[in-house]
C-alpha cells in the first residue's frame, strides 16, 4: 500500500491505523525513512546510529505483541537520543570515549516504549554527554536546523528534535538537564516536555547531572506528548529517585484552560530578549486569554544566581558521573599506556571533547577539599531558595508563561568559542531543572525570517496535565499558520532553503 500520509500523521493516528490492522508496523516505521529522511537526513544529520535490520527486528517484535491491538504507541517509530541505552543500537553519547559501545540492557523508558508497541527507529545526535545547547559538540559532527540549515537545531537533544521536526518519526526521546529538550524543541518548532523530576525513570539514561536530568519527549502534537507521557511515566524500582505513586493523569489534555490563571512575569524579558521572542509570548498570552485563561502579572526573579547555581551543581555531578569512563571496562581505551594512570589520562584526554573536559574540570574544582563549602554547598542552598521562589510564584497562578531561549535559533559556530554566551542562553530553562518542576516548550509559529518561535509553559510539581491543556489550547487557538487547527490535520513542513 502507499505509504503517503503515514510519515506525517500523528503518533495517535498512526497507532490507530496499526491497531486497526490497516497499516503494518514495518511500513509505519519505514515511511519516515523513505519519504522525509531521504530528502532531509543527509543535510540535517539528525541520526547517528540507524540500521534497517534493527528496525525490522524492532517492528517484528512490536507486531508480535499479543496486546498490540490495545497498545497506545502501536507501530509508532521513535527517535531516541544517543544517551539512552538500547540493546539494538550503539549508545555513545556522541562521544569518542564510547565509540562502538553497545549497552547490554534497555533503559526503562525504552522498555516501556517497546512494551507500548513503539519501535526505536534510530539514535539521535546530541552534544557530547548532553553538554551543550547547539548539538555542535558531537563527535559525529553537528546537526542542522531543518527550518534553516545555516542554524543550529538547539541542544543538547538536537538530533531527536530535528528528526521529529522534519518527519522521520512523530515522537522523540531526549534528556533535559538544563533545557536540553525544551530549547531544541523551540528551535525546531515542535513540542518538548521536560517532566517533573522523578516521573520518567532515569535508569539507562547515561547520567550528566543526576539531580537535574530528566528524560523528555518531543512530538509535533500536544496530544502525542500526552500519549507518550502516559505510556512512559511512573515509578521504577530501578531508579530510587522516581516519585512513588501513579503519574498524574494527562488524558484530559483537550479539556481547555477556561478559568486557569497563567503567570506573566514580563520583567524577565524587558531586556536581553529578542523582539521576535517577545512577540511570540504576547501572541501566546492573547491566545490563552481568548481560550478563557486569566493573565496574572507579577515580577519574578527565578534566582539571579540560577545560572551560577546550575553550572556548579551540574558540573559537580558530571565530574563524578563521568569518572567511570576510564577505558578499563568498556568504550575506547588508549592501549599503549605503560601503566594504569597514563591509561586513564590518555583515554580521557583523547576520549572527551573540549566542552566535556571543561565541565569535568569545573566540577572537580567545585567538589575539592577546601572549596566544597564555598561552591557546592552554597549552590545547594541557593537551589533550595530558587525552588522556594517557584513555589511562591505558583501560589499566584496555575502555570507560567516564559521564553524558552532569549533568542531565535542562532547560526552554527556563532557561540562555540564563547562558552559563557552559550551557558547564558539557558537562563530561562535551568530554573525548572533546579526546582524539579515540569516545563513544556510550545511552538508559536515563525518569525519574520521564517525561523520557529516558541514559548515555555511552567507548572508546579506534577503539573503535566495543566501544561498539556495549555499547550493544546495554544495549538488550537494560536494565531499560527503552520500549526494544525485540527489535531489530525497534516503538518506543513519546512521548505528547503
Amino acid at each position, binding site marked *: 500500500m502507499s505509504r503517503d500520509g503515514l510519515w506525517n500523521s500523528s503518533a495517535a493516528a498512526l497507532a490507530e491505523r496499526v491497531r486497526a490492522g490497516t497499516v503494518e508496523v514495518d511500513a509505519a516505521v519505514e515511511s519516515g525513512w523513505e519519504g522525509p529522511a531521504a530528502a532531509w537526513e543527509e543535510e540535517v544529520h539528525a541520526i547517528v546510529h540507524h540500521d534497517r535490520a534493527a528496525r525490522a527486528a524492532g517492528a517484528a517484535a512490536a507486531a508480535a505483541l499479543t496486546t498490540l491491538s490495545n497498545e497506545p504507541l502501536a507501530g509508532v517509530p521513535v527517535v531516541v537520543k544517543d544517551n539512552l541505552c538500547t540493546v539494538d543500537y550503539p549508545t555513545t553519547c556522541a562521544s569518542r570515549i564510547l565509540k562502538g559501545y553497545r549497552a547490554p540492557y534497555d*533503559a526503562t523508558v525504552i522498555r516501556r516504549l517497546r512494551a507500548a508497541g513503539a519501535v526505536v527507529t534510530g539514535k539521535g545526535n546530541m552534544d557530547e554527554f548532553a553538554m551543550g545547547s547547539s548539538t555542535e559538540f558531537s563527535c559525529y559532527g553537528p546537526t542542522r536546523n531543518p527550518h534553516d540549515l545555516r542554524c543550529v537545531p538547539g541542544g543538547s537533544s538536537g538530533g531527536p528534535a530535528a528528526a521529529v521536526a522534519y518527519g522521520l518519526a512523530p515522537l522523540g526521546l531526549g534528556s533535559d538537564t538544563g533545557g536540553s529538550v525544551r530549547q531544541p524543541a523551540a528551535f525546531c518548532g515542535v513540542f518538548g516536555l521536560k517532566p517533573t523530576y522523578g516521573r520518567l525513570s532515569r535508569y539507562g539514561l547515561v547520567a550528566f547531572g543526576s539531580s537535574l536530568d530528566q528524560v523528555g519527549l518531543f512530538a509535533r502534537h500536544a496530544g502525542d506528548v500526552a500519549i507518550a507521557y502516559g505510556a512512559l511515566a511512573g515509578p521504577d524500582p530501578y531508579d530510587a*529517585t522516581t516519585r512513588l505513586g501513579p503519574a498524574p493523569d494527562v488524558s484530559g489534555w483537550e479539556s481547555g484552560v477556561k478559568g486557569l490563571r497563567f503567570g506573566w512575569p514580563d520583567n524577565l524579558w524587558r531586556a536581553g530578549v529578542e523582539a521576535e521572542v517577545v512577540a511570540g509570548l504576547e501572541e501566546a498570552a492573547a491566545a490563552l486569554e481568548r481560550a478563557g485563561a486569566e493573565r496574572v502579572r507579577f515580577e519574578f526573579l527565578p534566582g539571579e544566581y540560577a545560572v551560577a547555581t546550575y553550572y556548579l551543581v551540574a558540573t559537580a555531578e558530571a565530574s563524578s558521573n563521568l569518572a567511570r569512563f576510564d577505558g578499563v571496562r568498556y568504550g575506547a581505551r588508549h592501549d599503549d599506556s605503560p601503566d594504569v594512570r597514563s591509561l586513564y589520562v590518555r583515554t580521557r584526554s583523547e576520549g572527551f571533547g573540549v566542552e566535556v573536559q571543561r565541565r569535568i574540570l569545573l566540577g*572537580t574544582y567545585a567538589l*575539592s577539599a577546601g572549596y*566544597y563549602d564555598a561552591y557546592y554547598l552554597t549552590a545547594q542552598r541557593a537551589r533550595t531558595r530558587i525552588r522556594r521562589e517557584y513555589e511562591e510564584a505558583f501560589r499566584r497562578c496555575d502555570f507560567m508563561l516564559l521564553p524558552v531561549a532569549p533568542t531565535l535559533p542562532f547560526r552554527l559556530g556563532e557561540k562555540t568559542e564563547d562558552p559563557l554566551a552559550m551557558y547564558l542562553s539557558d537562563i530561562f530553562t535551568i530554573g525548572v531543572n533546579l526546582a524539579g518542576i515540569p516545563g513544556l516548550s510550545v511552538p508559536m509559529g515563525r518569525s519574520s525570517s521564517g525561523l520557529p518561535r516558541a514559548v515555555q509553559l511552567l507548572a508546579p510539581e506534577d503539573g503535566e496535565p495543566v501544561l498539556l491543556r495549555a499547550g493544546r489550547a495554544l495549538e488550537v487557538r494560536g494565531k499560527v499558520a503552520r500549526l494544525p487547527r485540527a489535531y489530525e490535520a497534516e503538518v506543513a513542513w519546512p521548505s528547503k532553503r
Partner: protein
Amino acid sequence: MALEAVIGLECHIQLTTRAKMFCGCPAGFGAAPNTQVCPVCLGLPGALPRANRAAIDAAIRLGLALGCTVRETSVFARKHYFYPDMPKNYQITQYDRPLCEGGALPVRLESGERAFALTRVHVEEDTGKSFHPERLGDRRVSRVDFNRAGVPLLELVTQPVFHEAAECAAFLTTLRRLVRWLEISGGDMEKGQLRCDANVSLRPAGTTGLGTKTELKNLNSIRGVERGITAEIARQRAVLESGGRIEQATLLYDADHDKLAVMRSKEHAHDYRYFPDPDLPLLQVEKAWLEETRERLPKLPWEVAAGLEQRFGLPAYDAAVLAEDRERWRHFEDVMALGADAKTASNWIMTEVLRVLKERGWEMAAWSAQVPPARLAEFLARVAARELPGPLAKQVFAWMADEPGDVAALLERHGVRVQSSSEDLVPLVRAVIEENPGPVTQYLAGKTATLGFLVGQVMKKSGGQAVPQTVRELLERELANRPAKA
C-alpha cells in the same frame, strides 16, 4: 620520656546478605570470576543504585547491639578515587551523616572488662578484586573480578582508645564473635569478611594530645593485627627516641616477613571529593523499623555470659567461652535444663565438644544433630555419678559422636562392662594388696601417697574399666581392716 601508644581501628565487616548492596546480584562467594555481575555493580553507563534493605537492617542490628545512636535520616555519599577494581571510580559510602554514631564494644581483657568507645558504623559497598600482574604473551596484565563489587560492607570506626596491640586483638576477637552472634557476617579475617586498618601514633605518657599517626593496612588476621601494630609501635618508638619525626603515611604490613612498607606518603593523600549521592534518596529509618529491629535483637553475648556466671556459678572464662556462639550457648542451656552439673557440662563442652568440632570441621548444629542435649545430659549424669572411669568416659564420648544410643547401649555394643560394683572389684583389690607388700607397708606406716600407686595397679588389672574413686575407697576400706605388721 616514656611514650605511650594511641591506636584507633577502622574495621570493615562484609555482610552475609543474599543480594549486593545496590543491586540484586548474589553477594555470595566462590562463583567463577565476573559471573555475579550486572549493569549496576559493573557501573555501566546509565545504571543506577538501589539500596538493599536487608543490609541496612544488619547495620541497624549491629548499631543497636553496640549502643550506637541510629540516625533517622542518614545520607549516602560518593567517595572518589580512580582504581581499576572500582567500577564507577567512586564508592558509595556514608560521610558526614552516617547511619550509626557513638556506642561502645565491651571487651574482656586479662585486666578486666573495658568498653572501647566507637565513633561510627556506616554502610558502604565493596570493590572488585584485582589480580596482578600476570603475563599474557609478552605483556604484563592485571585482571579484575567484579563479583565482590557492590557486596555490602559496614565500616566501624573506633575512637583512638587503644594503647596496646593486645587490646586491639581482643577487640577484634570480640567484634568477630558479635557479628557472628548477630548473624550478619562470617567474621573470618582470613577470608576478608572482617578487615582491619589501624591508626597508630605515640605521645608522651600522661599527655592527652595525639602525635603524628600512620595508617596500617593489610592486617589480614587477628594475629596480624597484633603483630603489625606491635611492629609499628616499636618502629615509631625507635624513631622518636633517636630524636626523629614520624611522617604521616600509609603502611602495608607484610605478615610473612613481619615487616612494614610505605604504601603512600602524605603528599599523595587523596582528595576524595565526597558529596551526597544524587542517585539515592536520604536513608530514612523510621521509628517503627528501629523498634521492630530492637525487639528482634537477640540477647547479646556479654549479657549471656554474665547470666551464666550468675546463674550457674561458672568462672568468667567458662561463661565467655560458652557464650562464644549462639548454638553453643543454646546447647549448654538445653543440657542444663536436663539437670546436668554446670561445671561438668562446661568442662566437657569447652574441651571435648569443641575438640570434636575442630577435628571434624563441624558446626555446632552438626554436633547437636548427632548428640542432642538429652544424650549429652545422660552421659554427663553418668560421669558425675562416677560410673565412667576417665579413659572410658573419653572413649564413650568418642563413640557418641559417631553412633546412636545411650551410654549403656554404647558400652554393650562395644562389649565393655564397667566394673564399678564392689563384688567385681574386691577380688582385684585384695590381689593387689597381696602382690605389693612393700607399698602396703609404707601406706600403713603413714605414707598415704602410696595409695595412688595401688589404685593404678587395680585399674591396670581391671583393664581400665574400673572407676578410680571406687577403687580408692575399696582400697582404703580393705587396708583399714588390716592390722599393721610390726
